[in-house]
């Protein structure tokens, strides 16, 4: 039974409760970070890590934190985690820290983490909260990857910039620069959410037949 619930929570975090495509939360970092596939994936992985850890801690403390001061407590715990991770990375994995660089402090203001602490971790067991963290985190990372792939190809004409396997897809100068800037972010995000919703509605309809 426990095994099933874990996988179920994991799956719903990635699909039915996908933070970006379904819940539409964490939009700010999503727009800011999806300028290249590498940035999107890096942010996704870092955020997933913080999300799982904070979900576990907040779930473990859920019976101890009084409801009236829970938001303040969650924010302190989450910000503390992010700062600790930042220091550890800077000290022991400086190269990784240089690549992820500015994204780590940005995680503190990622409302997905606070939202999950409030909506799930404060009401469920540690085990399931970890599953939720993983599922939502993966869902977030997948969403970021899709959006940044689209924006990077159209906006910069490359894919995988920053990785060793980077490819140039469009000829020099022919990309629509707007797509890696703010307006393009909104346009790309809106269209992709529309497409994802269309596909998932069709799948649901097909399943009901």
């Amino acid at each position: 039974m426990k095994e099933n619930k874990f996988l179920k929570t994991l799956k719903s975090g990635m699909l039915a409760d996908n933070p970006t495509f379904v819940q539409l939360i964490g939009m700010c970092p999503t727009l800011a970070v999806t300028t290249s596939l590498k940035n999107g994936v890096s942010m996704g992985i870092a955020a997933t890590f913080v999300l799982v850890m904070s979900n576990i801690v907040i779930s473990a403390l859920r019976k101890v934190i009084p409801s009236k001061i829970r938001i303040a407590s969650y924010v302190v715990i989450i910000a503390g985690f992010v700062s600790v991770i930042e220091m550890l990375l800077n000290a022991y994995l400086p190269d990784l820290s240089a690549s992820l660089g500015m994204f780590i402090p940005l995680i503190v203001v990622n409302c997905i983490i606070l939202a999950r602490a409030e909506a799930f971790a404060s009401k469920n067991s540690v085990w399931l909260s970890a599953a939720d963290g993983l599922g939502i985190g993966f869902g977030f990372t997948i969403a970021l990857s899709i959006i940044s792939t689209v924006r990077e190809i159209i906006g910069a004409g490359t894919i995988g910039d920053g990785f060793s396997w980077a490819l140039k897809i469009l000829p020099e100068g022919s990309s629509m620069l707007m797509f890696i800037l703010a307006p393009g972010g909104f346009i790309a995000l809106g269209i992709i959410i529309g497409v994802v919703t269309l596909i998932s509605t069709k799948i649901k309809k097909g399943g009901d037949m």
Partner: protein
Amino acid sequence: MSVKEIVKYGITLFVITAVVGVALAGVNFLTKEKIAENTVVKVQDAYKEVIEADDFSNEIDLKEISDESGCIKNIIVAQKGGETVGYCVKLEQSGGYGGAISLVVGLDTEACVTGVSVISHAETAGLGANLVKESFREQFKGRSEEITAAVKANPSETEIQALSGATITSKAVKNAVNSSIKAVKQINEGGKQ
């Protein structure tokens, strides 16, 4: 809320923030030295990247040159086999899009740029952040005269090609290189006139 409740919540919150605060202080204490070490290594690596030399232990006293920008923080004498082969100018260049850009400009004894290495920056990912790309930094090699502008296309002999969508970042790097060239020329002429 009764006074009792206020006190209870206040104390609970205090305990939580105290525990997190101690954890932060603890991790900070444990990692402080390592982080400082890493920064030193990073800077040393930057020196080695911009100029071929093995000794960077000597520094020029900044009082001997006049730097209008105020961005030059160190001028290291690059030596190889006991001989001075050039200089590494370390700058905290202001005017970047996201704030100061920390970089090193290497020059030979003729004030000719041998390389540019970026230590840290806060430029926009996908745009100004491309300043770390070799294709952009390569342009500065061999320059020994002031670069007049960073242009969008077809740079002349005294200009450089700006990063696409990032003219502010490009100008900041250009200014850093110009300051470095000026500083080394002053050193060659025997310091402040």
